């Protein structure tokens, strides 16, 4: 099993007036090669779930294992190493450095990981090619369209041959045409063996995933 969540809960500001219970007793098992969508309205807990899966956030209670790693006890260093090499993250607002080129952005996890400049550039070009955006390599991200940026963000997430791609509302800022194109890309990546979890409140996106979950007030429920 790639991911195992057992009775995971997340509460922000516990014991205060501003307390928010974002996740309540979530159980989830994800095998390698799964393509899962998580749907729900704003504030339902989708992003919190994905951030916990990415190691950007920690559950208040419950257990989370990524393969054999206990993510609730793992150090910041260990979680960061996983994000660099095994877990790719795509965010709604792309999470790119706007002043840098697409190539530089894709190189970023490799640079952080200490990969040599030559190898990083070669690998980044290969990934951009695979995403069909090799021609954007030298363009600054600020000059790209929303669809192009999201492809660059996906390329960055996969620059190190990640096993898992977590996409938090990846189509939130895209028009329908770019949404379709991105979902085509994700499907093709999944066919090549990549495990994908997408959070969305767009039913069209959700229907493209073979496995679908819904989330409401922090409670996760399998739909199909």
């Amino acid at each position, binding site marked *: 099993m790639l991911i195992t969540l057992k009775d995971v809960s997340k509460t922000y500001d516990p014991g205060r007036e501003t307390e928010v219970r974002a996740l309540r007793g979530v159980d989830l098992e994800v095998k390698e090669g799964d393509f899962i969508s998580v749907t729900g309205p704003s504030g339902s807990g989708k992003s919190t779930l994905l951030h916990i899966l990415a190691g950007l956030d920690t559950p208040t209670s419950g257990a989370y294992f990524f393969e054999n790693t206990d993510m609730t006890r793992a150090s910041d260093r260990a979680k960061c190493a996983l994000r660099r090499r095994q877990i790719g993250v795509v965010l709604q607002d792309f999470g790119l450095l706007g002043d840098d080129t697409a190539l530089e952005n894709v190189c*970023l996890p490799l640079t952080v990981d200490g990969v040599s400049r030559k190898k990083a550039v070669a690998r980044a070009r290969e990934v951009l090619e695979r995403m069909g955006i090799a021609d954007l390599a030298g363009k600054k991200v600020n000059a790209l369209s929303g669809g192009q940026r999201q492809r660059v963000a996906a390329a960055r997430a996969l620059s190190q041959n990640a096993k898992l791609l977590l996409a938090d509302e990846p189509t*939130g800022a895209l028009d329908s045409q770019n949404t379709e194109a991105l979902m085509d890309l994700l499907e093709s990546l999944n066919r090549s063996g990549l495990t994908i979890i997408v959070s969305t409140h767009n039913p069209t996106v959700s229907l493209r995933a073979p496995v679908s979950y819904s989330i409401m007030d922090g409670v996760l429920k399998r739909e199909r």
Partner: protein
Amino acid sequence: MNTLRIMNKLRSRGFLREFFLLATLTLMVIFTNILMEPLETYLDTKRELERDIPVDFDAALRFSPTAWYLWEMPEAEPEYHPEIHEALRAHPGTGAVLESRQESAHCALGGGTYNFDFILYSREYARYMPLKLREGSEIQGEEGRLSVVVTEAASRSLPVGTRFEMCPNGEGAPVPCLVVGIIGGAIPGADTHQPSDSAEFDLIGLTASNHPDFALVAAVYDPAFFDEVPWDPAALVLPEEGVDVSAWWESLGQETAQWGQLRSLTEYERAALETTLSENLSEELNFILLSLIAVFGYGAYLFLSVRVRARKFAVLSVAGMTRGRMFALNMGFNLGIYLLAAGLGWILTPWAAKCLVQMDRYRSAGVLGALCTGGLFLMTLLMSTAASLVQGRRAAAITLYRKGD
């Protein structure tokens, strides 16, 4: 190289921001150096004197008929009373009374006249605190001429071998003099202590040294030269070995209270520092205010600069960078700018001291200045970076990660 690349990504693209940071830090270094200067000078002088003068600073006392520091002038004109020194010398427990006097003089030399300060030492003074002469600089004295030794700075106008005439305080008959050596160590005095190589303070030491070449060993008392000049009978008083210093000090103070005051030499030196500080109070308050502005301005800038980069930190976090590395990178980036600012500040401080705050005698702020600016910088850097990263992390989470929900 990768670290430098990431550091470059953290850099703000606006040149003005970086320039502002550099300017703020440079000002902080300059102000701190200027603020530290009087304290630095005091400690340097004390260190120099302790090295050159074989007197126990903590046991030695300074007698003065004036209030205990020069700026509090006596009500009456200073006048030498031999009985004062006799009373000091005769008191049980007293080991030695070292007399000296500091005056100014007009010196006729070649076609022109020069103003110099000079110190006269008694024979006893010279025995306890012999002047150290620069090796190889001495020549034989001449009969009928006062042998004088000069500081390094004074030797530019009065090289060894120069014959000249001097009028102490501009009064009395001219005294024929001959420069017989250059002082190589500190110049001890009961009223003041001056480093011998001060470029701005030309000083002639008229020594009563036990050096055989100095003919006028009893210059202080020689009526042929200085009879008409009134002087302040300040003196250093040393206890006998093994004496209870505090008891001796107390009884001596009571006995000589009618003539003047006794203070410990250390206390006297401290008072000199306090006087210097109080004379420049308004400037110092301005420096402190400006330093605080610089420190807080820098701290606030650091804080905001990290907040502004919160999104970049969030992106780096998504790309797998640890919090510790982000902290270290941010520290490294700011440390680089600080080192540049420190270099600039140290180069600009003498100019700023002279032109901006009219400090005539700025000596390079040494270790103390460096420790102080470095300490201030590190404290500000650590506090503002830590605070801003905590805040920045929250801001990043809100602006980037949690945008979905």
